[in-house]
């Protein structure tokens, strides 16, 4: 299986630990990733300013993948939503013509052929839990982990059609395969607050802290979006600095967690990069439980 790897803006610059882990992990499941170097912003940020331009930006990226006859693998929830939403909206032929009028000026055309997958969707729905189970080499029995799904992998559910928007289960299922004890957070629907950063940093981090508090006493928080990652990781630094609240819970991507369970090297999975809250204690605990 071959997929165009859609990195967007944040993953390749602020969360390339996630990217590294995805590249390593997909290798184990015969998924070939193709880099399209002209991929750019997915369009999400522009929606508030001009929804039509945002739609054209998304369609432009999809059109690039279509030229190579490839489906798209998105790593960021934001990219997953905006590309999926474009696909959904462009079912409307009149709107599609309008978008293609613009794309025609840059010699591109949207046809609606390429499908969009999120990394978690690829693992759960395409590769499947039984195949993943077969490949687990290191059981993570000794650690307790919680998670943040993030919003744009769940909602709007009529567009994304991945998991239950109020009672999501798929990430939990994927995490459980590693053998780790999975702790359900209070508020599986909670938002990390990332979108508020531009307008009110206190409000943005208050949302993040609310999310962190909902995880309870765990060894790590698992995420699948670079925005959730930054909010919950950096949010702990801000919590200490500005709110007098002290946490020390590393935030890790599901791809990194799975990489550990597949027996991959922690450095190759980017555990010593980018993380503001150190992953050292978590990794040690994983090692201890494996003798």
């Amino acid at each position: 299986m071959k997929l165009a790897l859609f990195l967007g803006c944040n993953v390749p610059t602020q969360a390339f630990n996630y990217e590294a882990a995805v590249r390593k992990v997909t290798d184990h499941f015969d998924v070939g990733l193709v880099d399209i170097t002209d991929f750019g912003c997915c369009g999400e940020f522009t929606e508030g300013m001009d929804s039509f331009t945002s739609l054209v930006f998304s369609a432009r990226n999809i059109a690039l993948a279509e030229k190579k006859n490839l489906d798209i693998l998105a790593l960021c929830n934001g990219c997953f939503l905006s590309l999926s939403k474009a696909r959904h909206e462009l079912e409307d032929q009149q709107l599609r013509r309008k978008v293609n009028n613009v794309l025609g000026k840059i010699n591109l055309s949207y046809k609606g052929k390429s499908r969009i997958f999120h990394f978690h969707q690829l693992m759960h729905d395409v590769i499947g839990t039984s195949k993943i189970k077969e490949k687990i080499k290191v059981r993570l029995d000794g650690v307790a982990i919680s998670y943040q799904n993030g919003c744009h992998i769940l909602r709007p559910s009529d567009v994304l059609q991945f998991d239950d928007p109020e009672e999501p289960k798929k990430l939990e299922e994927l995490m459980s395969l590693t053998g780790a004890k999975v702790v359900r957070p209070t508020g599986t629907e909670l938002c990390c607050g990332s979108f508020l950063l531009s307008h009110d940093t206190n409000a943005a981090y208050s949302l993040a802290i609310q999310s962190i508090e909902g995880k309870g006493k765990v060894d790590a928080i698992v995420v699948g979006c670079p925005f959730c990652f930054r909010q919950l990781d950096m949010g702990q630094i801000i919590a200490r600095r500005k709110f007098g609240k002290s946490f020390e819970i590393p935030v890790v991507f599901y791809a990194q967690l799975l990489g550990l369970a597949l027996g991959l090297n922690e450095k190759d999975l980017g555990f010593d990069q980018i993380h503001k809250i150190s992953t050292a204690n978590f990794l040690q605990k994983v090692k201890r439980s494996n003798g």
Partner: protein
Amino acid sequence: MAPPKKQDANVASESAPKMSENIPKELKGEHTLEDLNVCYQCGTCSGGCPVARIVPKYNIRRIIKEAREGRIDIANKILWFCSTCYLCYERCPQDVKPIQIVHEITNLVSKKGCAPMPIKEGNRSILATGRIVEVSRLTQQKRKQLGLPELKLDVSKDFRKIAKLTGLEEMVK
């Protein structure tokens, strides 16, 4: 509250676009005034809104009500406080899709050149490099150490052309 006099609305849109004006007439896309009217103000949207818990003055139910009555203050920065969690979209018993109405309002505000500076700045970055985050030399170095491919620094060409055609170029000024 009485609806604003027509005269007031005209003055507002011509001089300083800061006063109330009749937003619904200008709402385009799939929403019409009729769609807004099916909202019976039950408060499911604002009740579940994660932002409202932290910033009580962000009241999505009230925004829908004011949009319907033509009382939106387009200069009010609170319109931009949606975290885009889509809970209101998911839960609305009348399928009003409140988040889409908020986007239609902020789109309209942006067309008048009144988007908040961080929003303009972010979009300018996209038009300058094709990404909202700039790729620094340090990023490239660290990526290389991790065995990741080099990123193309500037993928903005298509984005700039699109922005010229759709009018985004003007809105970010």
